[in-house]
C-alpha cells in the first residue's frame, strides 16, 4: 500500500480505471471489495441495487448439508451502533443451492466464494465434496464459528484442534483455496489462525460476529428468541481491526479477508492497513444496498 494521494478525488475515480487487483494466495480478485456471508443471500435480491458483477467476489450465505428453517423470531435486536442476530443459518441446503443459485451467479460471471457450515467435521467434508470442480466457485470459506455437536457444542473455531481437524478434512477434498472464518470470541485468535493455516487453509476471514445478548427491561425477557445472538456493525469494528492486526503480526504472509462493522471507505482502508487483503462489507448491504461501488472507488484512492 502506498500513501494517500490527496489529489485523487474519490468521486472522480472509476474502479475500472485503476488497478485494484488483489492476490489472496493463488486467488486473484479484480478488486478488494467482497460481501460478508449472511447479508447478501446469493445476490438475486441485491441485483436491482447495483452491478454485482463488479464486486471482487461474492461470499454467499453459509450453506449446510440439509435445508435449514432457522430460529424463531425475533431474530434481530438493534443495539448501540450494532445489531444482534440469531438467524439460525436459514438456507436452502447445498444441493438446492447448487441447482438454482449457483447457475445464476455463474451467468453473471462474478467469482463466488461459498461459505459452508457444519455440525460435525464430517459434514464440512461432505459439503466440500459437493463443491468440487463447480465452475465459478473460486474459494471455500469454512464458517467454523459453529457449534460442534460432537464436542458439547463447543464452537469449532474456539479450539485449535477442532479448527485443524475441520480445515484438514475440507482442504483434503477441496479443489479451490480454503479460507477459515474465525470468531473473535477466543483468547488467542492468532493461535487459531495458525492452526487453520497449518491444516492447509490458504487464508483466514476475520471476523465473525461476537456473541452478545440484550434484555428488554420492561418485559424482563431476552430480546432475541434464541436468547443470545451475534453482534455485528460499527460497534465491533475495533475488534475486527485488532483481530486482523494480531493475525497479520503472527502470520504476515497469510492473506486475510477483513470484515466487521465496515460502513465507509475509510473502514475498508483501516482493515487493509491492519493487514487485510480485502474488505467484506455487510452492514452496508443492510443499511445501504446501493453503496458498494462508491466504496470500491474510494478504496482505490485511499490504498493504492
Amino acid at each position: 500500500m502506498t500513501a494517500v494521494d490527496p489529489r485523487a478525488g474519490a468521486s472522480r475515480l472509476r474502479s475500472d480505471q485503476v488497478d485494484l487487483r488483489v492476490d489472496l494466495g493463488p486467488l486473484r480478485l479484480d478488486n478488494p471489495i467482497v460481501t460478508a456471508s449472511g447479508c447478501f443471500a446469493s445476490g438475486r435480491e441485491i441485483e436491482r441495487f447495483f452491478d454485482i458483477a463488479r464486486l471482487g467476489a461474492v461470499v454467499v450465505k453459509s450453506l449446510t448439508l440439509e435445508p435449514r428453517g432457522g430460529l424463531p423470531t425475533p431474530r434481530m435486536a438493534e443495539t448501540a451502533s450494532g445489531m444482534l442476530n440469531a438467524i439460525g443459518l436459514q438456507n436452502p441446503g447445498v444441493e438446492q443451492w447448487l441447482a438454482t443459485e449457483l447457475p445464476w451467479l455463474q451467468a453473471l460471471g462474478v467469482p463466488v466464494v461459498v461459505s459452508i457450515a457444519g455440525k460435525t467435521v464430517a459434514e464440512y467434508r461432505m459439503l466440500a465434496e459437493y463443491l468440487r470442480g463447480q465452475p465459478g466457485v473460486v474459494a471455500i470459506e469454512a464458517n467454523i464459528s459453529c457449534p460442534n455437536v460432537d464436542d458439547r457444542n463447543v464452537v469449532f473455531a474456539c479450539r485449535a484442534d477442532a479448527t485443524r481437524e475441520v480445515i484438514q478434512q475440507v482442504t483434503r477434498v477441496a479443489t479451490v483455496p480454503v479460507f477459515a472464518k474465525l470468531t473473535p470470541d477466543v483468547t488467542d485468535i492468532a493461535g487459531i489462525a495458525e492452526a487453520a493455516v497449518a491444516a492447509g487453509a490458504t487464508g483466514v476471514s476475520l471476523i465473525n460476529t461476537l456473541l452478545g445478548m440484550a434484555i428488554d427491561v420492561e418485559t424482563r425477557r431476552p430480546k432475541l428468541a434464541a436468547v443470545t445472538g451475534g453482534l455485528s456493525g460499527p460497534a465491533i469494528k475495533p475488534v475486527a481491526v485488532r483481530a486482523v492486526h494480531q493475525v497479520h503480526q503472527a502470520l504476515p504472509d497469510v492473506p486475510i479477508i477483513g470484515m466487521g462493522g465496515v460502513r465507509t471507505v475509510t473502514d475498508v482502508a483501516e482493515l487493509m492497513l491492519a493487514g487485510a487483503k480485502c474488505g467484506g462489507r455487510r452492514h452496508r448491504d443492510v443499511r445501504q444496498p446501493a453503496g458498494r461501488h462508491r466504496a470500491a472507488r474510494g478504496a482505490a484512492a485511499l490504498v493504492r
Partner: protein
Amino acid sequence: MAATAGRCGATEEVLAYRRIGAYHSLTFVAPDMAERARPGQFVSLGVAGGGTLLRRPFSIYAVSRHGPWAGTIEIVFDVVGPGTRWLSGLVKHDVVDIVGPLGRLFPMPQQQVGCLLVGGGYGAAPLLYLAQRLQQANLRVDIVLGAATQDRLFNAIEAKRLSASAVFTTEDGSYGTHGRVTDVIERMFKDGGIGVVYACGPMPMLAAVSRVAQRHRIAVQVAVEEAMACGVGVCMTCVVPYRRDGDVANVRACVEGPVLNGRKVVWDEIGRQPVGDVATGDTATAANPALRP
C-alpha cells in the same frame, strides 16, 4: 450503476409534515417511487439519532403521480422509539434516504366481489390507499377500522368517503362500537356479499381476522409487520412461518410479504422453534443451550 441504484434507492426531499390524530405523516417528493408504488408495498427509511443503525420500514399510505411535484409518496407513523421520533422532527426540505417501493402488493380481486378492509391503528393507512384502487375498479368496499382510542383511529373521514359502509371500533368505547374489529366482522361475514378480506394492523389482530375469514371460507390477504434488518430479502430476519407446497417454510416478510395469504400464515408458530430444527449453526446458538426465553 447509477441507473440501477436510482431504481430503488434515493435521497428524497420532505414536501410536507403533518399530524393526523395521534399519528404523524411525511410526504416526500419521489417521482420514481410514486410511479412504481402499489398498495401494500412499503418504503424503508434511513433514520438518525439515538444510535440508530438500521432502516425503518413504513407502509405507503398515499401516492400522487401528477401535480406540481411530479410524484409524491406519503407515509403515516406512530412515534414509538428513536427512529420514529427523529422522523417526527423533520420539516419541509429536509432529506431522507429512502429505499422502495419494496415487497409484495395487495393482489386485486380477479372477480367482481365485495371487499372488506380491516385495519388496526396506523394499519388503516395502506388500506385506504387500497380502497382507492378497489373503488376505481368498481368493486364494493366496506371498511372496519379499530383502535385503542378515538385519536388512534386513523382517518375515519377518508374511510367513510372511500367505502360503501365504514364501521369503527375502539377498545375504550370513545368512538364507534365498543370492542374490537373481530367483534363486528363476524356479523358482516354472515350477512354475505364479501369475497375477500384485506387486513393490516397488529399481528394478533391479523391472526384473529384470518381465523374468522378461514372459518367462513373467505380469502384473506394480510400485510404483516415483522422486525426487519435489511428490508430487501438478504438477511432472513423478518421471517413468518407459512404453508407452502404442503410444508411450513419461513418466508421473508420483506420480499414474499408483507402481504401474505392470511390462511397460510401459521399464526400459532410465530416466535416458536420449528419442530425438528433444533440444532443450528449460528454463533448465536453456541450459547448456553439451557437458556431459553
